[in-house]
């Protein structure tokens, strides 16, 4: 082994490694410990935030109407922050460390800073939760001014963001070390490139967050007298929306990773997939403007350029990934001899492995429910039909729960044996978990979108207007939708609970992986080591994927058309 004699002098720590018996990769002990810590804390916030989500859904179920109004808004704020920010971003830190140090066979840069970042994030998340639960900060996680939260609500978010930014720099530092020490050949693997995309978007996200949250914090303690609400919205959404694009990038990287690890799938064309990520880097953040589509004072040029012309390039990126990943799976499966008909490769895929089924549902729900509704809603004219209705949470539960959360759950089933080196407990529960959770989430997302199409607003405690001065009658169908949403919410909660129980039991009480168990049930499928390599599949034939893509495009076009038709009916021009 080459020894870097100058390393201690440059302040480098002495890295400890083990060699992974399943992948042959060198695993940096510090990176491994950080992945564990971030993933465990992430799951705790998912459990807490998911429980709040159930209470919110039960309140919006008209026959149950569980919480009083003040608790509804309080827990809705906590739900948004705990799941959207804390669960997802803690997990993303684990993904960044995995995609850099582990996949590049390299030591982690500056682990002390990485731990500092972790602690800042943890303290920030706890402080923000305390602020919300104390009841003075029920401002929703968007915290639009002039609504004012307690100062420690903003402070908690700021600490959390600073911690996450440190994590991003540790990630970039690790890339530099890997390059300097030549721990990989040629270009970085595609999964790592996806993580680079996520980290770049994270830097923009956090910088925008700092620009807006620091003045807002100062305003909450009285040092600044006034913050313009529209200015707040514009800058806040540069953070609020872009952070969703961190999720998209991380989740797509995970899709590639799981396809590679389980099936040995190589991207159809690595060049094209990397270009698709480049489209994300350049254009995805611009979609932030879709939150301002009905705002006065901003031109249609700005709105339409950002949410349509430029964004469609990023949507193109997503559609490339959406074709490329099933295509890579199909190519790998066909190579194994599963060549009958258009779909033998899919039928005979490892459906009993929750990492696989979770990935497939994640792709399906994200693309069909989240992607199509997102493009429709991001069209300036069509947006008028559903702006600020429940259609919006319907859309983003498809993207951020069905897509991101389910993808993160799926890879956790691989991280437990590979990084925690424990057996998955309750295998049967684990096997069914993605199905239950996936169906539940598809349900809440469809029913909220349905209710939103009928005009039901989001963030609204009582659509019956029982004690309101002016009342309004929603169609009976809207109430039925909210009931079905409640039922689907219970199902999703059961699915979420199954995940939390399986993971907590496995991590803390699971049997350690023995060499015999590894030989008998390897975590990676044949050829799984391609996850840590760059390179493409050669000359694949993909009839099955072509059919799936055609179905997607037809659904997309029809749904887009239906919404224009609907717009013309609710807004007659004669």
């Amino acid at each position, binding site marked *: 082994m080459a020894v870097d004699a100058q390393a201690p002098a440059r302040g480098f720590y002495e890295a400890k490694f083990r060699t992974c018996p399943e992948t042959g990769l060198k695993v940096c002990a510090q990176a491994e410990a950080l992945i564990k810590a971030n993933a465990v804390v992430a799951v705790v916030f998912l459990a807490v935030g998911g429980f709040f989500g159930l209470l919110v859904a039960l309140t919006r179920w008209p026959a149950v109407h569980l919480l009083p109004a003040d608790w509804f808004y309080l827990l809705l704020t906590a739900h948004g922050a705990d799941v959207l920010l804390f669960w997802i971003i803690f997990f993303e830190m684990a993904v960044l460390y995995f995609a850099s140090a582990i996949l590049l066979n390299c030591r982690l840069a500056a682990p002390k800073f990485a731990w500092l970042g972790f602690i800042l994030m943890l303290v920030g998340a706890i402080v923000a939760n305390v602020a919300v639960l104390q009841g003075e900060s029920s401002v929703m996680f968007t915290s639009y001014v002039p609504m004012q939260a307690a100062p420690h609500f903003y402070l908690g978010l700021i600490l959390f963001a600073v911690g996450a930014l440190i994590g991003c720099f540790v990630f*970039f530092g690790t*890339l530099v070390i890997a390059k300097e020490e*030549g721990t990989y050949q*040629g*270009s*970085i693997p595609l999964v790592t*490139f996806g993580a*680079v*995309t996520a*980290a*770049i*978007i994270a*830097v*923009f996200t956090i*910088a*925008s967050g700092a620009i807006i949250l620091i003045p807002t914090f100062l305003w909450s303690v009285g040092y600044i007298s006034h913050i*313009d609400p*529209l*200015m707040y919205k*514009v*800058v806040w959404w*540069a953070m609020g929306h*872009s952070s969703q694009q961190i999720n998209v990038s991380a989740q797509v990287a995970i899709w590639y990773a799981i396809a590679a690890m389980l099936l040995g799938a190589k991207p159809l064309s690595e*060049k094209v997939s*990397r*270009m698709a990520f*480049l489209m994300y*880097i*350049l*254009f995805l*953040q*611009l979609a*932030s*403007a879709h939150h*301002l589509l009905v705002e006065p*004072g*901003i*031109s249609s040029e*700005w709105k339409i*350029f*950002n949410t349509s012309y*430029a964004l469609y390039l990023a949507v193109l990126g997503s559609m490339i990934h959406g074709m490329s990943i099933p295509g890579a799976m199909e190519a790998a499966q066909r190579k194994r001899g599963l060549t009958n008909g258009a779909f033998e490769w899919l039928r005979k895929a490892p459906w009993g492995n929750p990492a696989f089924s979770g990935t497939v549902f994640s792709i399906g729900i994200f693309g069909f429910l989240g992607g199509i509704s997102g493009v429709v809603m991001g069209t300036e004219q069509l947006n008028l039909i559903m702006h600020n209705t429940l259609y919006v949470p319907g859309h983003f539960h498809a993207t951020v729960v069905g897509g991101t959360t389910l993808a993160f759950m799926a890879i956790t089933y691989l991280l437990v044996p590979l990084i925690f080196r424990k057996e998955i407990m309750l295998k049967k529960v684990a096997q069914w978990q993605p199905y239950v959770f996936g169906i539940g989430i598809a349900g809440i997302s469809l029913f909220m979108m349905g209710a939103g199409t009928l005009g039901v607003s989001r963030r609204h405690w009582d659509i019956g207007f029982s004690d309101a001065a002016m009342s309004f009658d929603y169609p009976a169908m809207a109430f039925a939708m909210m009931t079905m949403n409640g039922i689907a919410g219970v199902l999703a909660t059961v699915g979420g609970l199954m995940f939390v129980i399986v993971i907590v039991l496995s991590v803390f009480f699971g049997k350690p992986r023995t060499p015999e168990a590894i030989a008998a049930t390897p975590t990676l499928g044949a050829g799984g080591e391609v996850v840590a390599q760059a390179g493409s599949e050669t000359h694949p034939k993909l009839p099955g994927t072509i059919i799936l893509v055609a179905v997607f495009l037809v659904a997309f076009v029809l749904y887009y058309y239906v919404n224009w038709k609907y717009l013309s009916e609710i807004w007659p021009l004669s």
Partner: protein
Amino acid sequence: MSEQSTGSADQQDERVPAMQRLLDNPFLLLFMGVATPAALYLIWGVMELSQVPLAQ
């Protein structure tokens, strides 16, 4: 070129296409990924808002 000794010869001889050089440079990508939305979304957006007349 003396640093040739660090890589395999054929890797160094082949001219790397510009696009690939861009994609292999995370810091250039970082710059582009921050500058593009900063210009098109933030700066353009804030400029428009600053032109809205104040209510008296």
